[in-house]
């Protein structure tokens, strides 16, 4: 077997006639007894015949070539390419070579998609909303604005009520001037009743809950006072004054007023 492997390696040279006579005869002897190596030798012969047929064609082609002109053209082209390479250094094949081409493609695709996304976002005006014409405000904001307005009106209402009650508590039942002062108080009570209407809706909101009870008590007093005109007898006067004292209305008004005022910016 070993002999066959050695012979097989030499068959190319044997078929082309490039072996010394002694070696050539030894191979001939082996080929007579070994059909496998003989088949190998036959393949080499066919190959060499095909090659010699191609050589005939190439010989025919070679005769038509202007060898001197071709040599000049090759030299010129080589010089031109060498000059181009000096001007533009060839990229490093390691980084931009075939290994990184998919990564580069993905990166490019990512950039394109990202760019399109950003364009869509900016166009929608998320970061930089376009000024819209006319007035506009969210309903949440309007609710808050109404609550703020009610807070201010409640402070004002409590303040006016405080003055009315202080004035009333200092009014004696004696006939001189009392009727006029009570009439004034009655007029002011009517004004307070009108103011209370506008804060009623907001008094149910959480920040105003403490003011609700007091404002309702003031309203009940104002309703009574508004009906008196200048008529108030001693018993009525004492009864209303007692009611204001007993309920500590003036103290409560002060406390709630302070709390509502402290909500300012």
């Amino acid at each position: 077997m070993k002999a066959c492997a050695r012979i097989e390696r030499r068959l190319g040279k044997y078929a082309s006639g490039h072996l010394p006579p002694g070696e050539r005869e030894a191979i001939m002897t082996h080929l007579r007894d070994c059909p496998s190596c003989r088949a190998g030798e036959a393949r080499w012969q066919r190959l060499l015949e095909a090659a010699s047929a191609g050589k005939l064609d190439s010989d025919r082609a070679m005769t038509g070539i202007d060898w001197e002109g071709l040599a000049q053209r090759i030299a010129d082209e080589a010089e031109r390419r060498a000059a181009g390479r000096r001007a533009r250094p060839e990229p490093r094949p390691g980084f931009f070579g075939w290994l990184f081409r998919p990564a580069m493609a993905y990166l490019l695709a990512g950039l394109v998609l990202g760019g399109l996304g950003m364009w869509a976002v900016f166009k929608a005006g998320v970061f930089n909303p376009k000024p819209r014409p006319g007035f506009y405000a969210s309903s949440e904001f309007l609710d808050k604005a109404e609550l703020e307005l009610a807070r201010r009106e409640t402070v004002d209402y409590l303040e006016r009520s405080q003055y009315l009650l202080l004035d009333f508590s200092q009014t004696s039942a004696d006939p001189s001037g009392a009727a006029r002062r009570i009439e004034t108080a009655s007029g002011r009570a009517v004004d307070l009743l009108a103011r209370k209407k506008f804060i009623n809706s907001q008094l149910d909101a959480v920040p105003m809950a403490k003011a609700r009870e007091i404002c309702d008590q003031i309203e009940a007093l104002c309703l009574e006072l508004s009906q008196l005109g200048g008529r108030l007898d001693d018993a009525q006067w004492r009864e209303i004054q007692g009611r204001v004292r007993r309920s500590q209305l003036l103290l409560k008004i002060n406390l709630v007023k302070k709390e509502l005022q402290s909500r300012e910016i």
Partner: protein
Amino acid sequence: MRYKPYRTLLVGWLILAGLCLPARSQDRPEDKLFREAKLLIFDAQWAAALDKLESILSQYPTSPATPQVLFYKAECLSKAPGRAKDALRAYQDYLKTDDRSESLIEQAEVSIIDLSYGLYASGDKDAVKDIVGRLANPNKAVKYYAAYKLSAVKDKAVAAKSVPVLQRIISTETNPELTDRARIALLRVSPKSLEGVERRPDEPRTKVLRILITGEGTSRVDLSIPLALADLALQAISDSDKAMMRRKGYDLDRILRDLARSGSSILEIRGAEGEGIIKIWIETRK
């Protein structure tokens, strides 16, 4: 002449008795009950007050105090849960009486508006008619109140009926509380109607307050409102934003002062990292 104290005392007592007797003699039995009922109302004891008022109406049906008793009965019913319709009827009964007082009529009309709004909000669509009807009330306070209340109705087509009255409030009233309320109501119902009424003949340009509050990339507040509502708007921004403004040394007065000084340029208040950016400026529009 010798001073006689017993004589002074006697004269004083006679004067006092003279003052008190006519009043006491006018005190009818139902008056005492009525005073007790009012006391209960003052203490928010609505059910007990209602009992007392009903007993006055049944025992003294022809009393001169009947109209007032009817009014207070309606007040008590309006506070009782689930009795809104009874309260409405009681107020209407009061309005039909002959001896009515102006202040109680106004109070009753306003209470009817409130009760109707509550009924409408809980699904009784017909109740809104009582509010719409009062838009033409001769009493200005009742008419205005009906318009404010109607503007808060969810059905925009119904709410739009309040627009003419609200516009009229802005163009004719001088009380800022009334006009600011009307502006807020119009912003809710029809901002376009507000634009028309804000443009005065002597001032063809409208000053608009713009507030933009952004934080973490999203717009949280974006406002475009009449400058007249500036202080209200600044007060209505969230507590956290107000706290940030205070930390940066801004209070309401300073913001308004800076805005007035800077004219149309933007006042920008930047919070710490993670907080928002508040931009406030004034635009002048034709």
